[in-house]
């Protein structure tokens, strides 16, 4: 049995989650703490993947990064960086579609650190960066971690958008969910069952531990 889809899924999910945890954390801090022009619009755009069909999302990504767009052309010609029909495309799809699942709990956790507590630190002479490092993040880390776990789980299961932008190239861009689809289509019940089992067990474990881990005293 070919285990490449499992390997690729793990690689794509981890990479996408790294993006989510870094870029997403900055976005979560920005949205939780600052008021700026277009904040509402930004939130709506980030949340879109929760409500639009994955194929539509995939279509947007394809149009954005494909050779026919100037961004895609620039990346390919100047940076030598191809997104469409590569595993990087799968990362982009996983990142965009898992971002809202990270943002919601992370933002709630950051907002949940009381204003008085942060003001108390300010009044004690601490800079904004020190407060973030010693007060806000240590108090919000459970929510942030829950967001990371949710985003990771969502990234491993990404199907529609991935299929659109990365395609279904066995040994190159075929992730686990796509391999399952393929196996069922070809009547290969054995492979389908095993892959389904793997992904079910994995998702179950992730949520189970996320749930246990994020319950705490603070």
């Amino acid at each position: 049995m070919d285990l490449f889809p499992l390997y690729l899924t793990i690689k794509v999910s981890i990479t996408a989650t790294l993006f989510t945890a870094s870029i997403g954390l900055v976005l979560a801090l920005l949205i939780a703490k600052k008021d700026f022009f277009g904040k509402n619009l930004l939130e709506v755009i980030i949340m879109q993947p929760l409500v639009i069909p994955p194929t539509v999302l995939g279509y947007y990504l394809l149009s954005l990064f494909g050779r026919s767009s100037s961004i895609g052309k620039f990346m390919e010609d100047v940076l030598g960086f191809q997104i469409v029909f590569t595993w990087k495309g799968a990362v982009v799809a996983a990142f965009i579609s898992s971002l809202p699942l990270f943002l919601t709990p992370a933002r709630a956790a950051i907002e949940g650190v009381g204003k008085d507590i942060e003001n108390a630190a300010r009044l004690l002479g601490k800079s904004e960066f020190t407060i973030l490092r010693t007060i806000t993040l240590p108090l919000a880390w459970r929510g942030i971690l829950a967001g990371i776990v949710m985003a990771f789980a969502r990234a491993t299961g990404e199907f529609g958008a991935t299929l659109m932008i990365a395609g279904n190239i066995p040994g190159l861009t075929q992730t686990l969910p796509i391999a399952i689809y393929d196996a069922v289509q070809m009547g290969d019940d054995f492979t389908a069952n095993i892959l389904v089992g793997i992904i079910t067990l994995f998702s179950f474990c992730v949520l189970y531990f996320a749930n246990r881990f994020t319950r705490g005293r603070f």
Partner: protein
Amino acid sequence: MGLSFSLKKSFPGHKTEVELSIGEEVIVLFGPSGAGKSLILKLISGIIKPDEGLVAVDSEKLFDSRNNIDIPIRLRKIGYLFQDYALFPHMTVYENIAYGITNLSVPLARQTGMKGMGIGQKVRELMELMRLEGLENRYPNELSGGQKQRTALARTLAAEPRILLLDEPFSALDYQVREKLRGDILNIHKVYPITTIFVTHDIEEAFMLGKKIAVVNHGRVEQFGTREDVFYRPKTKNVAKFIGTRNIFNGVIKSINSRGITIYAEGIGDCIAEQKPDHELSLGQKVSFGIRPEDVIIRRSDMPLNRSLEHNLVDGTVTGIIGKGMNYTVYFKSKEDVSLKIDIPNTAFKRLNMSIDSNITVSLKKESIWIIETLNE
């Protein structure tokens, strides 16, 4: 160090406009809930930015809207005690107190603390002062309310503030704990004589802590003076009400002579007041005057009338009696339908032997009647 401020801030439905100048003393901002007392502290500290105004510690300006000065909160060196403590829940008592001492990270502070050097010594001193010994490794959720607030106070003092702002710090605590902490505040002020503003809506707390009291109402200071002035010589009806003068009447000045000021009030008759108010009075002028519930004396029918009580007698009936532990509150209605609230000690109440609907005579002690303000026609 002295603090002076003059601040303006408008919110929909609320307007604040205050101006005060205070020295190295404890002053109390006293007023009903929603009067804008806490907001004043937030404006001074910079937690909320004033629309316009000035905040200065001695000659150093912390905020000046005219010259675009707005020093960040962290550089103001103002200590602030929140009503809900605002302790850092992920840090121990020790770490909370040490947090503001230097810019060292907490683990480093803990290390130096263990070696008994600078920070550790200071934390221990404060813990001793605040009766927190033995609690250094507890987390805030393992502390009682009083311990939490004492930790918060130690944490605030550790940063060596120039000004101390206390925002109803004891209102969530029970009576005994509150009593003790008030004593702590006075002790601390002896050890660290910092300019302190204490916000409360508790009249007893205000009287105990503040040699000077500012009565705040609707975002303005209605009266600022010594506690004796505010309590016994309120300048407005509102102040009189807030400090518990329940018996407030309107009357007309009938005569002014060496024996006192005679005021005629409907339902009471002629009333003699001994104390002269700060403002000028003239015959025929309308005034409001009041008397505190504990200064209304119920006459004992079985004894000859004391000479000091022979003035301002009012006949009427008892309409209600409420026992309050230390004293009784008696509600009284005169024949002409004027209501009075009377507070008398337990022992006096027992001797009077009265019940609802008893007919009694009360005396409004002439030395206790205070003319609050003159009224326009």
